[in-house]
């Protein structure tokens, strides 16, 4: 059984069909990329998986759990973490605090214990910190550990957001345009990180990305979307060679 299975998902905003009868599945341990022109429904598909949007129809199954029975905040508990296209970090907090929020689903202490900061809270905090430090080492964020997000450059924020998602130790990582706005070097770093996330940490990655270099470099399978529907699915090379994909990007008669 696949880790994530989406069947016949449909979502409409008024008369606009954002996602139209979309089905795909992500296998455990693979990097699966979704590509497509602007407005194809890529981010909408992400928001459906995160339960920010309620689908009109379709089934969403993650590791045997029906996602539609969960609220948006319960999705993280299943082991799904995500990043956002336009970076949604906690601006008035340090990098460390941001990453620690990623540990929220692993908290075990109660309100009363936290008010008195019992030794157990302290031990838990140190455990969270240890997990976060692993992520900091992995992403080379050491120089920024105690910096406020508000003062950080765009590229670093992008990495911090990836780090926050990793800190929650997910099974499935949703990356919404991980390379958008990054320089060539930073994109290269991102590519290695995604490779390592899969190989070292064993985390399955589902990503939306426009940079075809990155997509063909890291992903096992690619799904091409246009107007909310599936256009093509296969290895990066197959999808890039698919006439329907070329037509969606470049227009009819380009081949």
């Amino acid at each position: 059984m696949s880790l994530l299975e989406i069947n016949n998902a449909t979502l409409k905003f008024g008369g606009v069909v954002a996602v139209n009868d979309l089905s795909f599945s992500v296998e455990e341990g693979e990097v699966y990329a979704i590509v497509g022109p602007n407005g194809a429904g890529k981010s909408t598909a992400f928001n459906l998986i995160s339960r920010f949007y309620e689908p009109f129809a379709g089934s969403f199954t993650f590791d045997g759990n029906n996602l539609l029975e969960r609220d948006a905040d319960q999705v993280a508990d299943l082991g799904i973490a995500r990043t956002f296209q336009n970076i949604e970090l906690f601006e008035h907090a340090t990098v460390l605090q941001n990453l620690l929020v990623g540990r929220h689903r692993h908290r075990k202490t109660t309100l009363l214990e936290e008010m008195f900061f019992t030794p157990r809270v302290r031990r838990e905090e140190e455990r969270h910190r240890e997990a976060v430090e692993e992520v900091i080492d992995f992403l080379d964020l050491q120089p920024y550990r105690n910096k406020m997000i508000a003062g950080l450059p765009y590229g670093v924020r992008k990495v911090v957001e990836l780090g926050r998602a990793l800190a929650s130790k997910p099974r499935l990582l949703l990356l919404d345009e991980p390379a958008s706005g990054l320089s060539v070097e930073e994109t290269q770093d991102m590519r290695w990180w995604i490779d390592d996330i899969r190989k070292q940490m064993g985390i399955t990655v589902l990503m939306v990305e426009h940079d075809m270099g990155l997509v063909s470099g890291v992903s096992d399978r690619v799904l091409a979307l246009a107007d909310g529907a599936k256009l093509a699915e296969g290895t990066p090379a197959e999808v890039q060679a698919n006439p329907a994909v070329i037509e969606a990007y470049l227009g009819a008669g380009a081949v």
Partner: protein
Amino acid sequence: MRIHFKTSYHHDIRLFPDRWTFSVYGTLLALAFALPYLIGEFYLGEVTNVLIWAIAGLGLMLLTGQTGQASLGHAAFLAIGCYANTILIEQGVPFIIAFPLAGIITGFVGLLIAVPVLRLHGIYLAIATIALSVLADDIIVLTEHWSGGVSGKFPEMITIFGFEIERWSMPSRFYYLVLVVTIICTLFYRNLLRSPLGRAFAAVRDSEVSATAMGVHIARTKGKAFGLSCMITGWAGALMGYYAGTFNNETFSLVISITLLMMIVIGGLGSIHGAFFGAVVVAFLPQALSILKDNVVGSGVAIPGLETGVFGMILILFILFEPMGIYGRWLKIRTWFELFPFARKDMFRRQKSYLKTERLR
């Protein structure tokens, strides 16, 4: 410049980051305990007032500064705490139980109110909470049987295991009581900040979308913030009742709510220091103004609206020139000295934040 040399993760979460800070706050605490021997009764009363306002400020700061939910209704919770405490004691509950219970009752009332109210955002939330302030007045009048209505109530003398505390006849004992409550509330606040719930508060404040994606239940977290905030405010209200000596339906008015909010903005949103700095301004400004007025235009002349006018002006000036409040200014001055002569003018300048994901509301 001080360098923190950390050898364990515990160093980052302990109460005081280093010996220096520990000694600074230790001295401050020692000074606070020695204060009744250092200053006269009048000024001790004023300091007590500052501390009571600071507790109320901590309460609102938890909600507004930490969780980002504005409230113009906190006078209502001061009232609930005050009346709950007085009525419980009248029913024969000893102070040592009645006082904590008053805060907990206020917290639960706050939690009940939070469920519908916290669905609102920004300005609408502020309007809804104004309604609480207005309602509190009417409810106190309507429930005259318990609350004493317009004629008001007088809190009884505090007795803790036979030890008597009264604000007028023994101000230093009352001061110590307030000081202890202040310390407990500050510790609660500080402990929450360094634990998962405190981070969840900040997460809700800065980005509800990504807080949700990280597994933070928005409504529940806001509810907790509101409840805790009301609990602390309730304690401040009970102490305010003792401090005033008498209270009725008009004691905890909308003006008190506005003053509270103003206080934490002037002090510096999102910091414990801010609540204290703001309380100093709010508690001392009326005194300072009246002394100033007496010296400039003579004591016989009354200037209506002087206080509110000056308050308003201070608030505008702070929002324009120092949105981080007094605590923010203090941080800048401290950094300037620490880095001397390398501090740069724009070190604290905030760059415009990047476009946010559509807020999914």
